[in-house]
């Protein structure tokens, strides 16, 4: 005590509390390499086929059949009508873009904030981002009706001498979604390069050696390689972080620049970002909880990591709750009768009142269970919450889009909207395509970033006793 008092003059920082290790049971880099590469190398388990066959049915039968039918017949096969010109197509577009966002947030933002635990889940969530942006991008393309003119959206010189109209946020969206797709693929691939080299070096057959060798592009992990690689990774993380905030903002601008009551609100860009991240965390829970069990990754994706994702989910649910509250407040405070009408009818109208309640009860209410540690530790329950968040967030988009369109300013113009079987089957098809790609990813590529996890171990720190340092940290 006396010593501490004298130390007040010459400040001695308190001893660093040991951080909980990222990987349990003090596993070393060799064990981790074997473990993390094993799923891409080993025999395909039965559960993989059980999941893959229905998914591939959706991807290879249902989705192409629906696309061919819709493209050859016209958008009339969907439930879209006047006044509800945006239906399941745009709902699902916004939903899929939203799912993508949590992956980018986890891999890019948590990287910049040096959250080392994200190394264990970053790869799996980035893959989720890439595949869900693909599914999102499909919808606006087929929604235009005459898909063969979809290239009009790009500034390509053509014989009509026409150009895209850049004053429209819908045009910005084209750029945003395509950029998001390309950048998230680049980021994902950049992270994969050292791990593809791991698989190349471990390959036992010529075919595997050739394919992984080709994809690894000659990576040999020299100091110079890592030097430039780390810089590129930081730069791409920063850029992806920008995208977390901008892509969904631009999707939000699609809505809020229109004059429609229920859409015309300045909070929309932020609203869509927060909603996107929240929905994405729901999907992360849905994917990771079974994955860590089925692929035996409990020591790497530990309950502590799941706990942190739950906390982030809870945080984003609070943010979305605040935004819902603001939306209702502004609708009341604006004094605009149309705004008040729309928001009143979200909860107490006819036809779609249930959507408004699902959105509030699930997205704001249910997620509050995550305050309790016992809930967060019960991964079956958390999985269920994740599924429900995805459904709740789907209904949020339904309420925003259909709920604002079906009864606008003129009662003569009112109508109702119901999806057709084509709407439903197209959505199921995109789910199938997403899970097909995801299952192929976990089968053929390392689903945890091998080099990154190893780099975050104490064994990788040259100043740590486990990293070979003599005498330990000074």
């Amino acid at each position: 005590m006396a010593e501490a008092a004298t130390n007040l003059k010459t400040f001695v920082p308190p001893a660093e509390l040991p951080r909980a290790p990222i990987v349990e049971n003090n596993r070393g880099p060799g064990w981790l390499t074997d473990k993390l590469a094993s799923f891409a190398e080993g025999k395909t388990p039965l559960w993989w086929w059980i999941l893959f066959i229905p998914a591939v049915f959706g991807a290879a039968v249902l989705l192409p059949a629906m696309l061919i039918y819709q493209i050859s017949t016209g958008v009339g096969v969907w439930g879209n009508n006047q006044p509800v010109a945006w239906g399941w197509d745009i709902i699902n577009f916004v939903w899929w873009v939203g799912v993508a966002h949590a992956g980018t947030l986890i891999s890019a933002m948590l990287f910049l904030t040096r959250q080392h635990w994200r190394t264990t889940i970053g790869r799996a969530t980035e893959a989720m981002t890439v595949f869900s942006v693909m599914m999102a991008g499909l919808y606006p393309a087929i929604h235009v009706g005459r898909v063969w003119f979809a290239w009009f959206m790009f500034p390509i010189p053509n014989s009509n001498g026409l150009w895209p109209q850049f004053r429209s946020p819908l045009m910005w969206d084209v750029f945003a979604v395509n950029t998001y797709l390309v950048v998230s693929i680049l980021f994902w691939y950049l992270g994969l390069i050292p791990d593809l080299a791991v698989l190349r070096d471990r390959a036992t057959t010529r075919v595997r050696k050739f394919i992984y060798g080709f994809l690894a592009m000659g990576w040999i992990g020299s100091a110079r390689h890592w030097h430039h690689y780390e810089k590129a990774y930081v730069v791409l993380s920063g850029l992806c972080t920008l995208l977390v905030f901008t892509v969904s903002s631009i999707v939000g601008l699609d809505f809020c620049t229109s004059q429609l009551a229920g859409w015309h609100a300045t909070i929309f860009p932020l609203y869509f970002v927060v909603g996107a991240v929240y929905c994405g965390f729901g999907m992360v829970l849905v994917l990771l909880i079974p994955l860590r069990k089925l692929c035996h990754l409990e020591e790497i994706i530990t309950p502590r990591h799941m706990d942190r994702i739950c906390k982030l989910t809870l945080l984003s649910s609070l943010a979305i709750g605040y935004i819902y509250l603001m939306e209702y407040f502004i609708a009341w405070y604006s004094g605009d009768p149309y705004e008040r009408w729309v928001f009143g009818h979200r909860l107490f109208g006819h036809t779609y009142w249930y959507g408004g309640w699902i959105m509030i009860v699930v997205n704001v209410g249910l997620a509050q269970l995550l305050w309790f540690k016992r809930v967060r530790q019960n991964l079956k329950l958390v999985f269920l919450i994740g599924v429900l968040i995805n459904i709740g967030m789907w209904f949020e988009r339904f309420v925003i889009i259909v709920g604002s369109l079906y009864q606008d300013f003129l009662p003569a113009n009112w109508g109702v909207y119901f999806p057709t079987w084509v709407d439903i089957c197209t959505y199921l098809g995109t789910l199938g395509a997403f899970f097909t790609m995801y299952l192929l990813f976990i089968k053929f590529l390392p689903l945890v970033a091998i080099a990154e996890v190893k780099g975050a171990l104490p064994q990788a720190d040259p100043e740590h006793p486990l990293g070979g340092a003599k005498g330990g940290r000074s």
Partner: protein
Amino acid sequence: MTAKYYGLMAEFDSPAAILGAAEKVRAAGYRRWDVFTPFPIHGLDQVAGFKNSLVGWFALLFGGGAFVATMGLIWFSNAFDYPLIVGGKPMFSPPMSFVPSYIMMVLGAAVGAFVGMLALNGLPRLHHPLLQKARFALASRDKFFLVIGANDLKFSETETRRLLESLGGTHIELVEA
């Protein structure tokens, strides 16, 4: 001899060992040497004497170029080549052009960072002399390799080998070019 061989390769067990060895190799006056590790090791950049990576400049150049090019495209297409009155909005104005230009800047910078990383690392590369060595496969697993190039002015098969041995390197092998 220098044409026949790529260099001498030694294996180390821990990040601290490879870092210490790299420091001593540099102190011994070698300049053409490199370290191969399964993950980046902090402190190695300083030992190897790397300056700030140029990847950031690639990103800036590509990103800035994309921003300016998109602004120019919007001005050219919407205000010059085919002016179109939409909602009484100006033909060209920075706020409406900013969003797509900004998004294209992110795209350009991302491509720049990726391309810059590959270009500065000399990738993609179909083959590397070190990949002939069976033990080098462990460089992506849990071993750390130090290679002194045969093109180093100080390189001598016996002297360099002795140095690597004294640093605690194991499985010292001569790598053919």
